[in-house]
Structure formats: structure tokens, C-alpha cells
């Protein structure tokens, strides 16, 4: 096994779930690595919850496999090993609801015991988790008196109570007010600091983009993209110019890109911003320039390259791929919502 593989904590292979003739999840391949936060983005009904339920062994996959690392080995999840294999994961799937007459202490202790947390340490652990959420004074209060945001926190608390390495959260911010959403976001970042690996879903891009290292986009049961936010945003620009320079290897690449940025970026019609920078694509050996898709800008960029004595071999505007068209063609209402640029103002 090489080093790269050792970092994978969860691997989904061809994961599929069919309800009757309807595919809720089709053929999903996904790897989650140690210590990263992976956002699982898709509109309502895309198949996020169904995927997570399969990971929790609440639903049996119609096809495909789930591999989870525990005690060092990547092991295939099955009915025989699910008890100890899933000890390494904490789940919060769909809206967390509690028995209103019980207190966080009672419920979290019960959950910690169920998951085999060392008995003598349960009491301390429960208090520790509740403190992490800033709810210490509420530890013995009946949950029916809690606000939505507080319940959500206890929901996340119940996912991490047995101190798993991996945490799976299904729409942890949905339905919360901005203040509570910020709290949840901060909490997720705190968990990341504790070196937890987190897989969290949302139907809103901005919720995920605040925390995720990589984003997996699921659309109508299919995984259509899995990349860092920067790369996704880059790809989602209106258009991309690809060009090849004959003698680029003679130069220091970083310096070259710096120079290109200076010359070209003012002409791309997108304004400035880190995601609009020029990139060098290692696979195609091409430089990629995001631009606004207007022919006039394309021409200006072309001219500028010649005027600055760059030996351009190829210069093209490739057709939009699936992801681009998805981001561009916002006819689908649900995607309009998902990609809504309006970020509600979150108090800091």
C-alpha cells in the first residue's frame, strides 16, 4: 500500500441505491482523506441523505461498496463488521430530534455507552462535549426547552460523543438562523483543528464553501464534480481560454504566471480575485485563463500575448463541460438557490 492510500479513511466505490425504478444514488465513487473536510453539495432530493444512510448501514446499497478505515485497515462495511467499523464514525443524519423530556447529559451518556466509550470516562466526556458547545449550564435541562440551534449542537454532540475519527453531518446548518449557523460553522472548524475528518452535506454552496477543503457535487443521484472550491470556481467561470507556449519550460513557472497575470488579467473582463488567476494545467501543459466569454476580450488577450513576445502555439476556448454548463445554466430553480451569491450577513 502506498502512502497515498494510507490517507484514505472512507472510500465509496460505485455506490448505488435504487428505490423501485428510481435511482436515488447512482454509481458514486468518492474518497475522503484523513483530516480533510469534504462538502457534499446538491439540491434537495439529489441523494445526499441516502448516501449517508448507506454509510451508516441504515440502508443497504443496491450495488457498490463502502470501505472504512478502522485500526489501520481499510475494511469493507458489512453486516458482520458494522458494529466495530462504524465505531470510527459519528453520524448526524437529517434533522436531529430528541426525547424532549430527557436532558443532554442523559441522552449523550446513553449514546456514549451504546458506542462502547470507556464507561468510567463517559461522565467526563459528556461534560467535555457539552462545554465544547458552550452549553454547560444547560446540561441538566430538558431538551424540549432548547432552541433549534441548541438542539442542532446537541445533535452534532451526539455524533462526536464517542470521539470518532470521522464525522458525518447531514445538513448541519439547514434551517438555522445566522447566529446559530455561525456557531455550527465555528464548531466544524474546531473539530477540524482536533484533526477530525468531516463529511458534511448541504444544499447551499456558501454554507459548505466556508469550511470545506474539497467539494463533491451530487446532482440527480450522480456525482458530477469533486474538487477544491478554488478549482470548482475556476471551472465555473463563464469561459476558459487555453493556450500553449512553446518555450514555457525555459522560464520559472511561477514568475511566468506572475507576468502573464499582470498582462492578461486586466483584459479578461472579470475583475480581480484569487480565483480568476491564470493557472498552468499539468496534464495538458496549457495555461488556463478565466475570462468573461466576450469575443472582444478574447481578441484583446490574444493580441496582448503577441505584443509581449510570447510564442503562442495553441489558443482555444474549449466547450463548456458538464460542470460549467451546470454552473452557467441556472435555469433549474434548485440550482439558483444552491448557488445563490447572497450570503446572509453572519455576525462575527
Amino acid at each position: 500500500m502506498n502512502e497515498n492510500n494510507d490517507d484514505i479513511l472512507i472510500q465509496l466505490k460505485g455506490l448505488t441505491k435504487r428505490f423501485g425504478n428510481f435511482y436515488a444514488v447512482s454509481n458514486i465513487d468518492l474518497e475522503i482523506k484523513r483530516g480533510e473536510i469534504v462538502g457534499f453539495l446538491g439540491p434537495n432530493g439529489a441523494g445526499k441523505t441516502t448516501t449517508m444512510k448507506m454509510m451508516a448501514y441504515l440502508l443497504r446499497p443496491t450495488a457498490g461498496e463502502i470501505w472504512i478505515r478502522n485500526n489501520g485497515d481499510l475494511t469493507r462495511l458489512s453486516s458482520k463488521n458494522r458494529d466495530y467499523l462504524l465505531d470510527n464514525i459519528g453520524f448526524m443524519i437529517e434533522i436531529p430530534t430528541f426525547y424532549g423530556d430527557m436532558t443532554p447529559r442523559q441522552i449523550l451518556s446513553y449514546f456514549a455507552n451504546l458506542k462502547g466509550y470507556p464507561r468510567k470516562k463517559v461522565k467526563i466526556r459528556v461534560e467535555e462535549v457539552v462545554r465544547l458547545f458552550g452549553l454547560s449550564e444547560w446540561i441538566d435541562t430538558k431538551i424540549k426547552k432548547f432552541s433549534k440551534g441548541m438542539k442542532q449542537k446537541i445533535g452534532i454532540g451526539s455524533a462526536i460523543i464517542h470521539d470518532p475519527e470521522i464525522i458525518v453531518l447531514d445538513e448541519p446548518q439547514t434551517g438555522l438562523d445566522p447566529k446559530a449557523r455561525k456557531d455550527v460553522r465555528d464548531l466544524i472548524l474546531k473539530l477540524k483543528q482536533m484533526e477530525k475528518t468531516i463529511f458534511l452535506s448541504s444544499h447551499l454552496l456558501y454554507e459548505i464553501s466556508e469550511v470545506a477543503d474539497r467539494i463533491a457535487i451530487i446532482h440527480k443521484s450522480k456525482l458530477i464534480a469533486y474538487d477544491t472550491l478554488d478549482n470548482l470556481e475556476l471551472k465555473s467561470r463563464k469561459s476558459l481560454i487555453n493556450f500553449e507556449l512553446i518555450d514555457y519550460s525555459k522560464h520559472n513557472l511561477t514568475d511566468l504566471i506572475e507576468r502573464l497575470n499582470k498582462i492578461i488579467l486586466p483584459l479578461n473582463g472579470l475583475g480581480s480575485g484569487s480565483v480568476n488567476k491564470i493557472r498552468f494545467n499539468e496534464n495538458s501543459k496549457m495555461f488556463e485563463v478565466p475570462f468573461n466569454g466576450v469575443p472582444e476580450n478574447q481578441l484583446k488577450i490574444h493580441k496582448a500575448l503577441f505584443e509581449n513576445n510570447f510564442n503562442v502555439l495553441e489558443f482555444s476556448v474549449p466547450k463548456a463541460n458538464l460542470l460549467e454548463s451546470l454552473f452557467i445554466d441556472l435555469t433549474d430553480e434548485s440550482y439558483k438557490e444552491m448557488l445563490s451569491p447572497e450570503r446572509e450577513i453572519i455576525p462575527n
Partner: protein
Amino acid sequence: MSTELKQEQLEIEKIIKEKQTIGINRYITQITDTINFEIKRTWKTFIIMLFVYLGIFLLSLLLAELREAAGVELPEESIDYLGDYFGFFGILIIISTATFGGGIIAEDFQKQTGNLLFPKISKSRLLIGRIISRYALNVILIAFYYLMVGIITFYKYQELPDTYIISMGWALFYTFMVFTIVIFMSSINKSKSAAIIISILLFLIAFNIIDSILMFTRTGIEPIFLPTYYENIIQASLDMPDPRFETVSFGRPGGNNPEFKRWLTPSIPGAIIGMSLISFLTLTAAYLLYKTRQSKNE
């Protein structure tokens, strides 16, 4: 160096051993943890029910005392006195069992509490833990009632019939069977309250109507398939009637009224087999429905 390696070896062996034992150990601890949690959770209901049982006992006592005060003599046998306390007992069992059991399956889907619970414990273990805890609380209620009835009978007669304990055994068995039917109702109903109400209506009305239909249609069939029929053995076992049926007639006194056969109680083997069979079937059906049930609230 070699000791370090040995240490590592031991560590690995320990982990492997843990993996192997997690199955049976976890099975038991999860069930006991569930029992623990469920008792805390149903404690309030239990206390309320305790007062209901106490109330019914006190009312029965009041009736007995009023009768005595009005000059009606005490029955000659302690068995007959004891029997007077079981007039409402069947209803009591149904109410408390339905209250304890109505939410056993439906609640987690109705309130969506299953979202957090099911990734942590399998449905079968959860159900076993809940059945044990709630049945145990029900057992305490019934034992409490028998205790009070026993005390008052002993106070009046300085003795208790031998069949006192046997009757309690039947009451507990009958309660378990009622419980399985309530669990079944909880598996097919959307909400806890629907399961409770339908269970109570089923026992207090539906089954009794079927019983009457059987009698009036003169089929002569012993209603062994009717759960309510088995309630009779609780009281009858104090002093088993022979034969186990009677002939009754309805209409104007002295008129030429038709006669009907009414079954009083199942036989002992009949009750054991009948109640076991009903419990087994309903519980199996409930479990199978539970296993495939999912919360659909999207």
C-alpha cells in the same frame, strides 16, 4: 528492541481480541444501557400508572366496604372476596400496557428521534431493551396491585388462597400477550397516540363484539383466537370452573327465551398455547415491519 516488538504484538492481539468480543459484549451492554435509559424515560408514565392502579384498588375497596357497611355479609371464601377486586383489572392492564407500549416503535419515526438512534444501535437490540424495560415496569404495577389485594384479603381472612400466585402468573402472561399486540399496533401506526387509542379500542370494543357475535350465532366455537378471551383465566384460575362454559339466556324473565353457550375461560394448556402463539406471531410481524420501516419526511 525485541521487548518493544513484543509489546506491539500484544497490542495488536488485544485489538483483534476486542474486535472479536465486541459482538456479544456489545449486544448485552447495548441492551442493558437501553433498559436503563428507557426506565428513566418512562418513569413519569410509570408513576402516573401507579396512581391509576392505586386508585382502582381504592375504589374497589370502597365498594367492598360500602357493601359491608350496608349489611351484606362478607363472602365465605377468601377466593370470592379476592375475585371482587378483579372487575376492572383487565381494563387496567390494557390501559397501562397500551400506554407503555404505544410509542415503542412509532415514536422514533413520528418524532424522527430514530435519525440519531439507529446509527448507534440496531433496531432489534433497541426493541429488546425496550420490551424488557417497559414490560418490567408493567410487571411492577401488576405485582403492586396483587400485593394490595393480597394484604386486604389477608387482613379480612387471615389467609390467602393457594391460587393467588398462580392468578398473578396468568396476569403477567396475559399482560405480555397484550403488550405484543400493542407493539404490533405501534409498528403499523404513524403515531404513538394512534397506536394507544387503537389498541384500547380493539381490546375494549372490537374483540368483545366478535365474542358476542360468536355467542349469538351459536357456533359454539371456543374463542381461542380472541386475545380478550384469555383475560378470563386471571380470575378463573383462582377457582377453575367446571365445565368451562355456561348457558345464558336473554329476554323477559319467565319467557320462552333462547339459550346461548358462553365460554368462561380457556383451559390451562389452551391458555399457554394460545397466548404463546398470539405473542409469537404478533411480535414477529411487528419486528419484520419495524425492520423495513423508514422515516419518510421529505
